Every structure is written in C-alpha cells, then in structure tokens.
C-alpha cells in the first residue's frame, strides 16, 4: 500500500504523510507520554511495583514505526517496551494493570513490566535479556518468507544491545537469508548508566556497523516522528518486496534514568535540558501547526488521552490482585505444570 493510498488527506503540496497519519502519530506519542508519566507517578505512590523502564523522550520512535505498520506486522520489544506495546493499540488499562500487578493486567501479573506481550495486537513479546529477541525476530521473519506471508517483523532495541553477540549473529543471519525483518536501534546515548560512546568502537553503534552486513547506513532523527515514519515505510517496503533486512539507528534521549532505580546523575549538566528543547512531542506540536492543524484539534487529542489514562488508572486501582488460580497454569501447553506421572 502506498503512502498516498493509506493517507488520502494531503495537507500541503510537499507533504507525503497527510493529516490523518500526522494526527495518528501525534496521538500515539501522547498516549505513550501520558501513560509513562502516569506509570512514574504510580511508582512514587508505590502502586507500580518491581522495576520499570520508561520511554519518556523516545515516543517518536515507537509512534513512527507502529503507525507505519500494517495489521499483522509483528513488534519485538525490549524490557523498555511499554511504548511499543501501547503504540500497537494495546489498551492503557491492560499495560498499567500489568505494571501495577493486578488481575486486569495484560498477563494477569505473571509477566510484569519487562515482558509486556499482546499477540493479538502483534506485540510478540518484550524481552529482558539483552539481544535475545533479535534472533527471535529473524525466526518470525523466516516463517513469513517460508510461507509467503507479507508481514514484517520489527525488532526494537537500545544502543547497548549492539555490543552483545546476538546482535551480530542476528544481523548476519538476517542478511544472508534476506529476511523481512527491520532492526531498530534506539540510541539514547546511554547503555544503562555508562555513555555508549565510552564502550563502543564506533561513534554510531548501529549505523556504523551496517556495512559489515552489506546493509546501507541509516541514521535518523529519532525525535521527529515524521522522519521515523518515512524511514519505517521505506524499510517495510523493502522487506515486503523480498529485498531483505534493514538496520535503522534512531538518535534520541531518555528523559528519565535507565530504570526506576536510576536518578541519572551521571549525565552532564544541561544535557537533559538541551534535549528537552527537542522533546518529540514539542517538536510535533510545532509540526502540526506548520501544516495548519488547529490548536483545538490538538487540545482535543490531549484531553481525550488524559481521560483514557485517568480512567485506566482508576480501573487498575480498583482491580483485584492476581488470582492464585493462575500460579501454576501455562508452564506446559496442556495448561498445567506437571512434569511427572
């Protein structure tokens, strides 16, 4: 499907994206921003337990890639996966419910923040062992290639992942087998607490390595949802045409620490403020204005999303704890956990 067919409303003479898609990109970013901010607030109230890894500041990447997808395309996420899960349309209530360890959570409390999965939305899991899901995405893409299915597997990971062996194995494997998989590196400048540049042999941990797999070097502004959307569309078209994988490095910045335990004091003074000038949602509000979309339309989206997140929060607060009935279910495919007779 071409961009034009997907987006019949064209807002300006040089606009390849269109108003309908622009509003979807904006709304998706706001859903992520509001839900992530709420997750942080609920953590401060001790209502979100365990760990959590927020995507505040990185919303444009999740939104751009998800909005460019077609139904049936598959997302493979890391433990920093709330954003990608929400971007595929998984209800906020189910995500917050899982973070709050309630029975209404996506996995009813069995998975937690780092393993959000909703296969019916194409969210094929959030993987908390660095690098594990790159080969897994290759396998899903292999199935598509083998069966002649037209879906694309899209695999999101951080800059730190580029230094683990599974990254190299998966990139080479995908390139040799010409698999319909798109690897998306969200370079937020820090692996966990350490700057990625301090531990990596090249300045751009993904883009500078693309040549090693015979792939073009793609480095984009990850805080501009339009740029992300365009790069995604090109990569998906290439994958669907049987022309193999893409590796895309998106430059971005996380506004919070690595995880909820991290106040991010290792960042140089002023760095966060400079990046907040380029906050993806701020950038995108300006963009909408340039294309003549009214403040009222934008405010209506903001209010609608806020209401959804507020309602989801109340629903989750009222939801029961996980049921003990599920403690031993689904270890094996027969539904139980029996390992002996």
């Amino acid at each position, binding site marked *: 499907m071409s961009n034009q067919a997907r987006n019949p409303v064209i807002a300006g003479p040089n606009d390849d994206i269109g108003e309908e898609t622009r509003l979807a990109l904006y709304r998706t970013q706001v859903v992520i921003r509001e839900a992530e901010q709420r997750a942080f607030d609920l953590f401060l109230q001790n209502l979100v337990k365990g760990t959590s890894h927020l995507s505040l500041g990185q919303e444009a990447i999740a939104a751009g890639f998800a909005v460019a997808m077609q139904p049936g395309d598959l997302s493979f996420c890391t433990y920093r996966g709330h954003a990608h899960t929400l971007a595929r349309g998984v209800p906020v209530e189910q995500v917050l419910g899982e973070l709050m360890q309630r029975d209404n959570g996506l996995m009813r409390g069995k998975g937690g923040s780092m393993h959000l999965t909703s296969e019916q939305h194409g969210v094929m899991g959030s993987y908390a062992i660095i690098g594990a899901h790159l080969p897994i995405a290759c*396998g899903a893409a292999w199935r598509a290639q083998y069966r002649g299915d037209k879906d694309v597997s899209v695999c999101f990971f951080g800059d730190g992942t580029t230094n683990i062996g599974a990254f190299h194995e998966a990139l080479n494997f995908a390139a040799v087998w010409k698999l319909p998989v798109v690897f998306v590196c969200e370079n937020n400048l820090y692996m966990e607490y350490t700057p990625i540049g301090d531990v990596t042999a090249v300045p751009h941990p993904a883009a500078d390595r693309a040549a090693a797999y015979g792939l073009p070097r793609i480095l984009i502004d990850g805080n501009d949802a339009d740029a992300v959307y365009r790069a995604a569309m090109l990569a998906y078209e290439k994958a669907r045409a049987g022309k193999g994988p893409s590796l895309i490095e998106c430059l971005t910045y996380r506004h919070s620490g690595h995880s909820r335990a991290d106040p991010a004091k290792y960042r140089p003074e002023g760095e966060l403020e400079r990046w907040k000038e380029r906050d993806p949602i701020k950038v995108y509000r300006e963009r909408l204005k340039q294309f003549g979309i009214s403040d009222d339309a934008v405010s209506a989206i903001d209010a609608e999303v806020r209401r959804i997140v507020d309602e989801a929060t109340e629903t989750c607060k009222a939801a029961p704890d996980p049921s003990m009935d599920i403690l031993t279910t689904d270890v094996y495919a027969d539904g139980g956990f029996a390992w002996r007779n």
Partner: protein
Amino acid sequence: MAELTYRDAVARGIAQEMARDPDVVFLGEDVAKAGGVFKATVGLYEQFGPLRVRDTPISEQAILGAAMGAAMTGLKPIAEIMFSDFLAVCFDYIANEFPKSRYMTNGQTKCPLVVRTGNGAGSRFGAQHSQSVENWCMMIPGLKVVAPSNPADVVGLLAAAVRDPDPVIFFEHKSLYPTKGEVPDGEIVDTLGTAKILRPGKDATILALALMVPRALAAAERLASEHGIDCEVIDVRSLVPLDTQTILGSVAKTHHCFSVEENPRLCGWGAEIMSIIADEAFYELDGPLVRITTPHIPLPAADLLEDAILPTVDRIVDRVRRTLKA
C-alpha cells in the same frame, strides 16, 4: 522391519515428520548440503529442498532464536546444535526464552520446537565436546527432555517430540550413532514421558539412559549368569516428563535401585529420581539407593582416561553385587 543405525534413524525420523507436515522445517550448521557432521541428516536436503532444510552460519544463538521465532508464529522447527556442549553458548534460549515465554505471557506464546543435539562421551574429543548435559536441561521448568538409546526409539521419540506442543531438547548420543537396531516399517510415533522395562528382573532395578542403557543390559546379563542376581533394567528415555510410576512400580518389586548416569555426579538426573524414591517408596527399600555416575571432574581426552571415568559394565556389576551382598 529393517535394521537401521541410530544415525540413519535420526534422518528417518526427521523425514517422516517433514513428509507429514509442511510446517516442519530443519536448520543447523552443516546439516543440509553436508548431511551433518555426524552424517545423521544425509538425504534430507535432497528430499525436502533448500527452503525446508537450511544450513546456518556458526551462530548458535541465531539458530535457536530463529527456531523460537518460527515456532511462535506457526512453524514446527527442528534445530540442530552440533555438540550439546555448545548449548552453553546459546543457553539463554534454553533457560530463559523457550521455557518461560508461555508462562510469562499467561499462555499467549507457544513454542513447539525440537532442539536435537549430539551428547555424550566415547569419541575422545576432550572436555568441551564430550559432556553429557541432559541434567542442565532437566532442571528448567517448561522444557521437555528426551534421550533415546536405540534406533527405534530415535524415530518414535523424535516424531513425538516434533508433534509435541512444548519445547523439547532431544539428546542423541554420539557413541550410539553407529549402533544398529531393528526398526519397524511404516510410521512410528512413540510417547514422551514413558520409560521402558527392557529386561524384567526381581532382585534389583537398574535405571539407565542413552549410552548407559546397553551397558546396564550387559551388566544385568553378567550379574545373572555369574552371580545369580536378576536385575530389572529400565530405559528412562524421557527425563521430562518423567515416568515415575514405572520406576516406583519396579522398586516396589525389587526393593533395590541403582542409577547409571553419564552426567557428572552433582545434580545428575539420578539424584532427582532417587529423591523421589526416597520420598515415596522408602519403606519398599531393602538397601541404599546407589548412583553410579561419572565423577565430578571434566572429561579427559585420552581413551584410557576417558574409559576410566565413565560408568562401565564392570563398575555396574561390581556396585550391584557388593550392595546386594552387604
């Protein structure tokens, strides 16, 4: 009925399942055009073609990860890890990904795949190409673990593993590849989680797995002919699911139990089974539960040294005789 080698039985089992189900695909290092480094997959590439039988780079994480992604989305992959020792370089998939995805996602994610791997000593390959590591996998909730001892079981259990909806680690013993056995004609499908009494007896139960099965059988023959001790030999075959009923039933009859394990002693599979017997059949016992294992040391390469540490027919005979005599 035809006589097949254990190695040819592997190819026959895979071919049987690939011919039956187009969702069955096979990948691994040197498995396609070369027919496998142990020649256990000869002919599959020619029969099923390059889309279904695929050579991979030396990338064990990519092999197992790709198998998982394919399994999650509808295929039934068989992945080969050439030597079971190499499971250590892709253990994330064995320990964290395959077995936990279904549980963590509250039943959403499925993982119907088989990992075949060459296990065990006898080839004089030294400490990193000779280990018996079935116990590494037995301890992980969510996996199934199988280790056949003869060609007919290879075909039947491999077919059962491919058809099973859970991830199955299928340990083929490298030293059994050249051994021969009768294999019935036609389709063979066995049942996971079933042990087999290969030799009935009344005086003691001997539990064995894979290469230790023929040794246990030979020891039982000698114990009968030379010492008048009548042993029941059970091929455990499947560690998970575990057929404890067959084992407990045998112990209730013989009142003595021995395990013959190639894995190193600590946390070997026999330890778990013996603890079950101690819990559930203690008052049936007339003597100690005895584990005959490889000691807690890495495997040496030289033939004399390797032979000296694996359980042998002599060691089995000696331990059973001394224990029953005491």
